[in-house]
C-alpha cells in the first residue's frame, strides 16, 4: 500500500497532462452518449469503442475505457429519468423513482441526485478498490499456479451460474468461450483447430470476439428488430415553474448520506463478486434501501433515496469489478473482460504481480478513476438534459450507423477482411443465442480467462510431474474448488426453486 502511494506523484503528473485529460474527457462524453442509447450498456459501449484504443498507450487505453465504463453507467440513467427509457436492465430500477420525480416536475433535482450519487459511488468505491485490491494482491502473491488455476475455475463457476436464466446455458456458453480460446497456438509449439487456415494461426483476436459477441448482436437487433421498437415519448414537464423545488437542500443531503454509504458498500461488494454486475447491484441496493429507509413504503412514488440507491450502486460496481480483474485476472463482467483484454493486447499481464511490477500503472488507474469522476460531475452538470436527446434518436437511423461502425472498426484492427467475416458470423450466432437466452457474456469471460486458466494448469501439472491429484488436493486449492461446487449447487437449486414457483 505504502509502496503504491510512493508512485502517487508521477501518476498524478501523468493524469494531469493534457492528452490524458483529453482522453478522459472523450471517454466520458462518448460513454454518456452511448450509455444513453437504449440497449447499450457499458460492455456494448466499450466493445463499439474498442478500435479507438488502437493508437493508445496501455495507460491511456485503460483510462479511456474506465471513463467510458463509469460514464456509460451514468449515461443510461439520464433517459431513464427524463423519458422513462432505461438504457440497460441496471437502469430499470432507476425509472421507478427517477421518472416518478420527473412527473412531479422534479426532473432537474432527479438528474442532480443521479449525478452526485454516481460520482460519490465512483469515489467511495475507488477508495475501497485501492485498499481491497492491494490486500487481495498480497494474498494473491502467496498463490501458486495450482491455486490460480482453482481461482479460474471458481470464476467460471460463478460466471456460468449467475449469467442468464439457466445455469446449464450459462455453463454451455462458458464452455464455448473456453473452446474459442484454444484456437491457434497451444503454448507447446503445436496448433489447435486451425484447419490449415492462416488467419486462425494466432487464434481469434479478442477484439473480433468482443465486437462479435457484445456489439454485433445489438447492431443486428437495431437493423432486424427495428420494426418492433417503440420510440420513446417525452414527458411533459414544466420545470421552470418548479425551479425552487428542483434545488437539493441540506435536508435532502442529510437524508441521502446514509443511503449513499449503505449503497456504495453494496455496489462495491457486488462488483467484486464475478458475474453479478450493475444490474444485480442496483436491484439489491434498491431492495435493501427500501428495507432500511424511513420512507421505504413510499418507494416508487418519486422518493430521493429510491433514486440515489440504484444510482450510487451502479457506479460503485465499476471500481468493484476492477478488484478481482486486476489482482487475480478474473473479470467480473463483460466490461471488465474487455478492460482485461485491452491490457493483455497492450502487453500488460493482470494478476497479483502487476501490483509488484507496475505500481505506477495501478496508481494511474486509481487516480484516473478519481479525476474521471470529477470530470463526469462537471460534464453532467453542464449537459445532462442534452444527453437525454440521444435516446430519442430513432432506431432506424441508429441501426445502420452502429452496424457500419462495427464492420469498419473490426476491419481497422488489422486491415483484414477475414476479421469482419469472423465478427459478423460470431455476432449472428450471438444474436440467435440471445433469442434463446443463451448469454454472450460468459463466452467473452471464458474466452479471456481460458488461456490464463490453461497456463496456470500447465504450470501446476509440470511442477507436480503431471499428477493432477497433487494439484487438486492442496488445502487452498481444495477450499476454492469446494467453493466452486457450492456455487454451482446453489445456482442449480435456485433455478429449480424459481421454476417450481413459476409452474405453480
Amino acid at each position, binding site marked *: 500500500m505504502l509502496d503504491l502511494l510512493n508512485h502517487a506523484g508521477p501518476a498524478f503528473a501523468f493524469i494531469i497532462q493534457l492528452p490524458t485529460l483529453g482522453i478522459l474527457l472523450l471517454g466520458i462524453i462518448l460513454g454518456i452518449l452511448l450509455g444513453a442509447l437504449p440497449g447499450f450498456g457499458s460492455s456494448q459501449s466499450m466493445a463499439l469503442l474498442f478500435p479507438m484504443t488502437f493508437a493508445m498507450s496501455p495507460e491511456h487505453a485503460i483510462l479511456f475505457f474506465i471513463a467510458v465504463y463509469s460514464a456509460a453507467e451514468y449515461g443510461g440513467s439520464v433517459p431513464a429519468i427524463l423519458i422513462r427509457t432505461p438504457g440497460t436492465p441496471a437502469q430499470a430500477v432507476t425509472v421507478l423513482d427517477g421518472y416518478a420525480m420527473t412527473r412531479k416536475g422534479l426532473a432537474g433535482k432527479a438528474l442532480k441526485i443521479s449525478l452526485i450519487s454516481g460520482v460519490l459511488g465512483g469515489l467511495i468505491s475507488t477508495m475501497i478498490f485501492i485498499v481491497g485490491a492491494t490486500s487481495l494482491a498480497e494474498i494473491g502473491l502467496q498463490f501458486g499456479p495450482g491455486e490460480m488455476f482453482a481461482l479460474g475455475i471458481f470464476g467460471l463457476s460463478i460466471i456460468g451460474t449467475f449469467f442468464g436464466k439457466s445455469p446449464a446455458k450459462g455453463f454451455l456458453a462458458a*464452455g464455448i468461450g473456453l473452446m474459442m480460446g484454444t484456437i491457434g497456438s497451444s503454448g507447446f509449439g503445436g496448433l489447435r483447430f486451425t484447419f490449415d487456415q492462416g488467419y486462425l494461426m494466432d487464434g481469434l483476436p479478442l477484439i473480433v470476439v468482443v465486437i462479435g459477441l457484445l456489439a454485433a448482436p445489438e447492431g443486428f437487433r437495431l*437493423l432486424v428488430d*427495428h420494426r418492433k421498437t*417503440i420510440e420513446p415519448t417525452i414527458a411533459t414537464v414544466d420545470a421552470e415553474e418548479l425551479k425552487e423545488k428542483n434545488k437539493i437542500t441540506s435536508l435532502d443531503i442529510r437524508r441521502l448520506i446514509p443511503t449513499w454509504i449503505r449503497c456504495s458498500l453494496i455496489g462495491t461488494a457486488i462488483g467484486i463478486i464475478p458475474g453479478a454486475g450493475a444490474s444485480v447491484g442496483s436491484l439489491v441496493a434498491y431492495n435493501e434501501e427500501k428495507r432500511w429507509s424511513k420512507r421505504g413504503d413510499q418507494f416508487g412514488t418519486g422518493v430521493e433515496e429510491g433514486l440515489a440507491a440504484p444510482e450510487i450502486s451502479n457506479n460503485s460496481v465499476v471500481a468493484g469489478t476492477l478488484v478481482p480483474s486486476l489482482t487475480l485476472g478474473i473479470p467480473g463482467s463483460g466490461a471488465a473482460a474487455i478492460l482485461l483484454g485491452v491490457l493483455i493486447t497492450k502487453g500488460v499481464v493482470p494478476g497479483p504481480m502487476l501490483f509488484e511490477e507496475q505500481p505506477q500503472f495501478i496508481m494511474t488507474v486509481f487516480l484516473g478513476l478519481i479525476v474521471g469522476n470529477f470530470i463526469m460531475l462537471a460534464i453532467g452538470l453542464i449537459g445532462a438534459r442534452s444527453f437525454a436527446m440521444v435516446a430519442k434518436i430513432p432506431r432506424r437511423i441508429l441501426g445502420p450507423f452502429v452496424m*457500419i461502425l462495427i464492420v*469498419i472498426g473490426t476491419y481497422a484492427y488489422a486491415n483484414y*477482411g477475414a476479421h469482419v467475416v469472423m465478427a*459478423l458470423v460470431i455476432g*449472428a450466432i450471438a444474436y440467435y443465442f440471445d433469442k434463446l437466452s*443463451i448469454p454472450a457474456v460468459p463466452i467473452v469471460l471464458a474466452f479471456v480467462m481460458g488461456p490464463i486458466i490453461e497456463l496456470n494448469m500447465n504450470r501446476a501439472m509440470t511442477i507436480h510431474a503431471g499428477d493432477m491429484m497433487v494439484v487438486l488436493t492442496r488445502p487452498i486449492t481444495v477450499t476454492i474448488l469446494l467453493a466452486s461446487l457450492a456455487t454451482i449447487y446453489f445456482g442449480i437449486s435456485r433455478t429449480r426453486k424459481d421454476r417450481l414457483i413459476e409452474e405453480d
Partner: protein
Amino acid sequence: MDDEETAVTSKVLLTTGDLFAVGAVLAGTLYLLYETFSMSPPMLPGYPGDSFFPRLSIVLILMCGVPLIFTRYRDHVMGRGELEGEKDETFSIDIRGFLIVTAVALSFPFLLPIFGFEIVTFSILTLWFATRFNEYVTAETMTTDIVVKVLVRAAVMALVTMCLLYFIFVIMLNVSMPVMFFPKYIDFGL
C-alpha cells in the same frame, strides 16, 4: 400501422430453437473432440499436451449440452410451449431481414479493395437508410416523389456518416483504409 404487421417475422418454438442451437453446438464439439486426437502428444512427462485443455472444455460443453438437449427434446415431444397463452415459449425472428442485413454487411470486406472505402460505405449506408426511411410506405402510398425523397434523405445521411467515419478512422486513428477519392480532396487540414 401495427408494427407487427410490417415485419416478416417467423415464430419459432423455444424448444425447437434450443434443440437446433444446442444440437449444432454438440455436433461441432464432437467434431472438435475428434480433431483433438490428431494433436501432437506431450513432449515430456508431466506436460498436459496440446489436447488436454480442449478436452476439458469439451467435457464441460457435453456435461451441459447433453442434459439440455434431452430435456428440451422431452419438452418438444410433450408439446410444452404449444399451449395457448405461453408467449415466453416462442420467439420471433425476421429470417429474411436477418439474412439480408448479414449478407450486406459481409459484402463490405469483399467490395472494399475493389471500390474503395467511400463508395462501399456510402452504398451500404444508403441502402440501409433507404430501407429504414421507407418502412412505413406501402405499395398503395408509394409514389415517385416519395421514393426520390426517401433516396435523397438516405443519401445525405449516408454521405455525412461516411465522412464522419473517414475522419474517425483514417484521419484520427490513422487506419490505412483502401480509399478512392478522399485523400486527394479532403485532409481536414491535419
